[in-house]
């Protein structure tokens, strides 16, 4: 188990909304409702919790700024349901909220008193479980009024950078030891598999010649080490040709497209389209060669720009959820027929850029 604790670290990362006005640069951030409702928004940057981690507990701490008698506030905490939420420079209250939420009702005490929320594990877990979450991303929260009749103020980053919103998370990272799994289930490269073996869904864990003691954490997964490396003695993915802790590109298809246009007739650009119909934006790599006359030249990584004596040429591509369109274009003086050949490699890795 590990603990992540961090405050807001920039004035642009917290603020509050009073009625319809977002206040992102004041020394205080307010909750509750006087005449109008308040909503606090903040984000914590560089949250170094790996994807797939299990959240054990989490909380938000606010520090009271000033005396507010015994005013009480009735709130509801939400996470911002985004992989890597942006700054709070602009009003963030319209961003998608997590399904998980938590009621947080409390009364003001004294200036500089800290107020710690209840357990927001389910909110943090929902963000960590997003497909696009990655260690180092920013995590955001909104604290909405939920029926208050009074207001309480707290330190914003601009008011006190050592007392602004604090996020505390206890978590267990993926691959950490779990008492419910026996270390004997660990699988590493098995030299006993015959070179001619057919693919098998259950490779034999027969390399169980009692690994020597090592400071590494137990590993639960499958690794195939590079020649000269020992899958039981290293966690470094650079030492593996395969490691089930890390995803791979899922090769789907290779396609070719060609464009040809005659600059002598005024054509200087062309495009061609391949329909993949995957229904999402796939990971794509494209290579291009450009030539006049017979096919020649080397394929280059696309997009690229090139130039001759009197002509610039450019190849490009775009991806939609149904198509990949390649483009070729020249600019300058030419009377030739230009040809662009494209090699397109498509992987079934969803870019998740909806």
């Amino acid at each position, binding site marked *: 188990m590990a603990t992540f604790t961090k405050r807001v670290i920039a004035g642009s990362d917290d603020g509050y909304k009073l009625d319809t006005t977002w206040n992102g640069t004041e020394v205080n951030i307010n909750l509750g409702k006087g005449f109008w409702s308040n909503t606090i928004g903040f984000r914590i940057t560089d949250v170094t919790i790996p994807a797939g981690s299990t959240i054990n507990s989490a909380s938000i701490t606010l520090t009271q700024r000033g005396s507010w008698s015994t005013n009480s506030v009735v709130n509801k905490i939400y996470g911002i349901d985004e992989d890597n939420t942006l700054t709070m420079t602009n009003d963030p209250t319209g961003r998608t909220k997590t399904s998980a939420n938590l009621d947080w009702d409390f009364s003001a005490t004294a200036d500089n008193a800290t107020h710690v929320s209840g357990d927001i594990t389910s909110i943090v877990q929902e963000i960590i479980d997003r497909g696009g979450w990655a260690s180092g991303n920013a995590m955001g929260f909104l604290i909405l009024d939920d029926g208050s009749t009074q207001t309480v103020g707290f330190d914003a980053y601009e008011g006190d950078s050592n007392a602004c919103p604090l996020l505390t998370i206890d978590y267990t990272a993926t691959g950490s030891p779990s008492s419910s799994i026996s270390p004997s289930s660990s699988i590493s490269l098995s030299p006993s598999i015959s070179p001619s073996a057919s693919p098998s869904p259950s490779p034999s864990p027969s390399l169980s010649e009692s690994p020597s003691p090592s400071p590494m954490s137990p590993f639960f997964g499958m690794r195939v080490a590079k020649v000269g490396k020992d899958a039981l003695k290293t966690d470094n993915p650079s030492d593996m040709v395969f490691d089930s802790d890390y995803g791979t590109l899922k*090769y789907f298809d290779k396609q070719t497209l060609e464009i040809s246009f005659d600059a002598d007739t005024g054509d200087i650009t062309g495009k061609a389209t391949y329909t993949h119909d995957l229904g999402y934006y796939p*990971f794509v790599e494209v290579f291009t060669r450009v030539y006049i006359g017979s096919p020649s030249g080397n394929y280059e990584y696309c997009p690229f720009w090139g130039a001759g004596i009197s002509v610039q040429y450019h190849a490009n591509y*775009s991806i939609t959820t149904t198509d990949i369109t390649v483009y070729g274009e020249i600019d300058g003086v030419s009377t030739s027929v230009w040809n662009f050949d494209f090699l397109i490699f498509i992987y079934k890795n969803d870019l998740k*850029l909806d």
Partner: protein
Amino acid sequence: MTQQVIKVAKKGKSAHSTDPNDFVFHSEYNTFKILLEGTKSATLSATTADQSFTQAHGLESFTIPIVVAFAKRDGVNQVFAPNSFDVEAWGEKAGMSGDIIFNYVKADSTNIILNFDNDGAEEDVDIRYFLLG
């Protein structure tokens, strides 16, 4: 001692083949492992060139990995790659230019660095990045 291997042949191919293209996995050949995958949102200032955005990758203990990224403007259903401009406006003879140019993506020992030009109004761009090693 003979070096042992694990091979998984493609459908219809023999595991005895000596052509690595016949395999979906072959332990004598490295595979790209996705060390890190994530998204970043960036607001591009209006009419400003050479705008860089950084994202800590937390892989300081590794050699600098291969980084690949794709960008998409908010409200535009096309994804484009580095060394490229957004091609929404690209029509016949549209000219070799666009409002937004995704100049490059690179990684140093601590950060992923993404660089854009924007000749138009302020724009939000979503980026998905992959660190492969």
